[in-house]
């Protein structure tokens, strides 16, 4: 036991091994969180859609209690036995409440099992590859859609750093100094998947969908890149971890209420930053191919768009890729504009004084809460706004956003020149 412990310490003391092991651990964590959030955002999507349209949505896919029978539960209704055990009357308030929650028939999951079951269904469905497709590209396309968002997540910081006595751990898989650019570059590569899916399906509607997706993606990438420049000018760094640290110290980009954030200069800069936020969020919607910008898969004129010919797990890859892009987009908005992992109001520094591990845990939870909130916003917009027309989408990008972004950069430069 002692020798194993000393051996572990020796391995960790080697900086290369320390780096490898911590990176692998962070990688697994980030990957698990994203996949969990993909499932969770599908559930949020359907529940919020139900709520907005005044219907329940998927709320019933609980674990039925008859599953317990093979494990020796002879009772048909375990609930009545349980009530008896606690001495509750079988038609009292508690019993009726339990029955209203369907506790007598199933273990409630509030519909959370629904995405899992959908996934299982897609996994078990028959896989059909039409004869007329270009097979290699047809198989490659879903991978190219699902892969990039997962890789792009590597630079998103999910908590601050910890100093262990083996070395410093920065809570972000790859603490690159080109953070936002990495996300833009890598998530931009998923356009290959959409294009190839449209082309390799070798049929009319997928092809049109693929072309639309390509044009929209490239256009909005330009606007997205230009729209964050004011923010980078204000913070003066491309490292996401440093940007979030700045926000933790002196106020979130959109909520400068503590530290240096209370100063007048910061509030003068609020205008360009708010414009930048609006543009960036809209571009993220367009990049994630979500309503009101889902021109590439708009059912009314394109059947299903680029994934019309896909079935089973290949379709599920497109589906997951879209939601993964949405999660990463939300993570970027949260990181750049809403303070990332920072709890705010100087709580971070206070927590870090108590215990760094506690601070990291709280910040991680805070980050997930913010992420969930923004995903909710995403879904809310989808079920509120109708779909735009194709020419409106293109006009919005080329005639409004790019001009506005350039003017915004100039405005920020002027303000920064007079402030400093």
């Amino acid at each position, binding site marked *: 036991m002692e020798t194993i412990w000393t051996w572990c310490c020796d391995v960790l003391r080697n900086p290369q091994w320390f780096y490898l092991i911590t990176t692998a651990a962070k990688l697994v964590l980030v990957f698990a969180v994203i996949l969990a959030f993909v499932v969770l955002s599908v559930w949020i999507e359907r529940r919020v859609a139900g709520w907005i349209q005044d219907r329940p949505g998927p709320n019933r896919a609980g674990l039925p209690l008859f599953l317990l029978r093979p494990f020796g539960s002879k009772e048909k209704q375990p609930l009545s036995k349980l009530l008896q055990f606690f001495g509750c009357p079988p038609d009292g308030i508690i019993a009726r409440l339990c029955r209203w929650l369907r506790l007598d028939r199933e273990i409630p999951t509030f519909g959370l099992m629904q995405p899992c079951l959908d996934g299982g269904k897609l996994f078990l469905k028959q896989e059909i590859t039409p004869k007329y497709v270009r097979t290699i590209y047809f198989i490659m396309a879903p991978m190219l859609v699902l892969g990039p968002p997962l890789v792009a997540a590597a630079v998103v910081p999910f908590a601050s750093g910890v100093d262990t006595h083996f070395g410093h751990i920065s809570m972000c898989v790859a603490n690159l*100094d*080109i953070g936002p650019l990495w996300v833009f*570059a890598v998530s931009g590569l998923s356009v*290959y998947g959409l*294009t*190839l899916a449209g082309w390799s399906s070798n049929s009319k509607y997928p092809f049109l969908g*693929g072309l639309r997706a390509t044009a929209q993606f490239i256009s909005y*990438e330009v606007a997205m890149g230009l729209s964050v420049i004011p923010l980078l000018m204000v913070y003066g*760094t*491309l490292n996401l971890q440093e940007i979030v640290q700045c926000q933790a110290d002196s106020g979130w980009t959109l909520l400068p209420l503590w530290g240096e954030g209370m100063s007048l200069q910061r509030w003068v800069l609020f205008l360009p930053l708010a414009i930048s936020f609006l543009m960036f969020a809209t571009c993220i919607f367009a990049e994630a191919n979500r309503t009101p910008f889902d021109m590439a898969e708009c059912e009314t004129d394109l059947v299903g768009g680029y994934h019309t010919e896909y079935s089973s797990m290949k379709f599920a890859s497109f589906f997951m890729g879209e939601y993964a892009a949405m999660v990463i987009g939300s993570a970027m908005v949260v990181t750049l504009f809403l303070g990332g992992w920072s709890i705010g109001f100087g709580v971070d520094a206070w927590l870090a004084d108590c215990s760094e591990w506690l601070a990291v845990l709280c910040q991680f939870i805070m980050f997930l809460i913010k992420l969930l909130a923004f995903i909710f916003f995403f879904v809310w917009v989808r079920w509120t706004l109708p779909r735009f027309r194709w020419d409106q989408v293109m006009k919005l990008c080329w005639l409004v956003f790019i001009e506005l972004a350039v003017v915004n950069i100039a405005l920020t430069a002027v303000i920064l020149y007079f402030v400093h």
Partner: protein
Amino acid sequence: MDLAISAIIFYVLAAAALLSAVGVVALRNPVSCALSMALCFGFVAAIFFGMGASFIGIAQIIIYAGAVLVLFLFIIMMLDVKQEEPVSGSHWFCITGVVMAGMLAGIFCTATLRLPGATGGRCPVRVLVENLGEMNLGNKSQTTPPASPASYGGALPALCPEKHGSSDARLLGENLFSHYSITFAVLGFALLAGAVGAVALGRKLHRD
């Protein structure tokens, strides 16, 4: 022969980049050619990353792989180019091509071999990579004497993930907007002229 892991990575990536570059010319399906080119850009970007020039690497991906090549692909698909027709070229065509290619290869080889420090298979840019971190950016002490040409070369630099700093992006930006600002602006205007020309060519002529 002791090869550092970074040297092995460099050679593997370089070989892959060369292979995919050959694929651009050799493959028959235009879409495969375009994708092979994207792969080549990716490998070149990876080599840049390995040398610590992460900004240039990411610019390579954003601009070439993410935008330019997608437009290529877009156009190939729009025109629906079928299999490339076998070229029934004359001998003159072949000979001119070979001569041109040979001259270009000669230029590159001479330039590379003439670099100070490129003797005995050593990496001529090592000194750049090593000094990247220590250059005092913004401070006026840029007068550090340059290393003597003999010491330019060396083995390929070792990878050090934590050390690669933002100095790459900063260095590039400061050079581009101070030393080369006029060149940069002129190039920008050249591109603008190109864009205006394209619009002029693509505009529909109204006949009435």
